[in-house]
């Protein structure tokens, strides 16, 4: 058994920030608890009833005291709000240079996949000092990705992607928990995060028996599912080309645009009619039920690997492919 401790290890850049806020809030809590307990104790002893007939003088003058003890606590809580919100804001925004890792939660295990193709179950190997961003999906119910040593937690809601990120600061082995109740073996949906020196991490990556990178596997799937029949490298296909798509704004039929991110790719695979690219027919079949969340992330990673190559494709460069016809019943503007 590990040694008994009162505070968890700090193993991410976020951990000390959360702990500093904790110390502040603890100080406030201890101060007010002692104040109240002390006052009750002092008054109770000092003003104890000495004779049965004594009648204290009830007096209440003005509202100064009430205003005082409304305004001061409110001021303190606003410090807490601002402080907490600023940490939350940091915790919500993964840095752009983060390593991408995918996670799929299912009853009752975490499946993790690195871009290089390494797959792990209930274990996650990551390098120290480098931000890691995890894009997560669920195969069934709500799960929650929780690493106490990193002070991060994010629910994984079925039907969409969720994101969490952290930069580990200390090599070691840390608990990974599922924190949202997910059924019988909820407490068995646990694992370990191994934080390694970057060099060791590279060794680990190249050491395992990966069957090709995620993008490679995605490419295979892309061909197996015959996606490439319509999504060609140039704009000659029935569907828009996917080359250079990631990170762009996509013009939609019926007006508006959407950022081509992981969530958009996922939606377009599972619900292709939800957002039709401007100038294309809604002809793509759904792959809902045909591909697992794990395969979806491989496809997504493949599309991302097609990389941003400006100037091509049907994205917001101003040039639109030759109009084919408007798609949703009469709602798209005429194009000529």
């Amino acid at each position, binding site marked *: 058994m590990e040694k008994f401790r009162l505070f968890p290890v700090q193993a991410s850049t976020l951990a000390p920030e959360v702990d500093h806020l904790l110390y502040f809030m603890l100080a406030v809590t201890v101060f007010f608890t002692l104040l109240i307990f002390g006052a009750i104790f002092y008054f109770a002893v000092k003003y104890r009833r000495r004779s049965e007939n004594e009648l204290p003088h009830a007096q209440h003058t003005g509202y100064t005291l009430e205003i005082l003890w409304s305004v001061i606590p409110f001021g303190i809580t606003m410090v807490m709000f601002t402080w907490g919100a600023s940490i939350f804001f940091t915790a919500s925004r993964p840095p752009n240079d983060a390593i991408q890792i995918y996670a799929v939660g299912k009853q009752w295990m975490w499946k993790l996949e690195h871009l290089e193709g390494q797959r792990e179950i209930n274990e996650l190997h990551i390098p120290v000092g480098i931000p890691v961003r995890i894009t997560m999906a669920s195969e069934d119910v709500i799960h929650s990705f929780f690493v106490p040593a990193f002070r991060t937690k994010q629910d994984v809601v079925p039907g969409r992607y969720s994101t969490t990120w952290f930069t580990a600061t200390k090599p070691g082995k840390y608990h990974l928990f599922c924190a949202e109740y997910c059924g019988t073996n909820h407490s068995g949906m646990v694992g370990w995060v191994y934080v390694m020196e970057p060099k060791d991490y590279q060794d680990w990556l190249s050491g395992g028996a990966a069957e090709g990178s995620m993008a490679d596997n995605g490419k295979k799937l892309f061909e197996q599912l015959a996606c490439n029949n319509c999504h060609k490298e140039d704009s000659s296909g029935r569907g828009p080309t996917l080359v250079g798509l990631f990170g762009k704004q996509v013009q939609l039929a019926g007006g508006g645009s959407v950022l081509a991110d992981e969530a958009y790719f996922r939606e377009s695979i599972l*619900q*292709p*009619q*939800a957002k039709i690219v401007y100038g294309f027919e*809604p002809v793509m*079949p759904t792959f809902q039920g045909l591909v697992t969340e794990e395969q979806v992330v491989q496809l997504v990673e493949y599309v991302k690997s097609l990389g941003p190559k400006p100037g091509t494709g049907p994205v917001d460069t101003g040039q639109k492919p030759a109009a084919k016809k408007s798609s949703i019943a*009469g*709602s798209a503007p005429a194009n000529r």
Partner: protein
Amino acid sequence: MADHAPAETLALRVQFDTEAQQKDASTLGMWLFLITEIMFFGGMFTVYTVYRSWYPDVFAIASSSLNEIIGALNTGVLLLSSFTMVMAVRAGQLGQRKAILIFLILTLLFGGIFLGVKGYEWNQKFEEHHIPGQAAFHLEGVAPSDQGHAQLFFSIYFAMTGLHALHMVIGVGILLTLIVQARKGRFSASYYTPIDVTGLYWHFVDVIWIFLFPLLYLIDRHLVK
């Protein structure tokens, strides 16, 4: 109970001092109950708002699959029943026992027609396979991958109209009891509170429908030719 309690009447229960106090209490009680009903339907209005804002196109197509003429006529029937209900209350105020009975029966009749038409409409949905959760579900004009969103519309449609109809059925039940009591000549100008508060309930159910009709049948149907 205690033998020294004053004799209790319908218009003056033992816990009250005056008839006016009792009437105030009953009216306030009914209004508070209607507030709980607002919040009850409010939950569903929230669900509707969220999904309509997410899937406006599919919802427009699904909306337009409902027959708005039948909907409008049925709204008229319900409004008519509200009118006869308020006339029954008025007859109560004036203590016209016969008129009370007639207007209550008319209200019951219109309520029954509304429910009948609603039943017909639901049956249509079954025939058209617009029943969410069924393998055969298919809504014309909606892409295969968006059928789920169309199912959401019909889930909301059935939940909202179903719960509305359930309230109507409860209202019909109350009307039946009132009619029985009215036949016995229980009501008079000094005691018609049950008719009054039933009226409030009935009108409230009408108001809910006044919103359900445009939300489910009308909005955005012009988008679909």
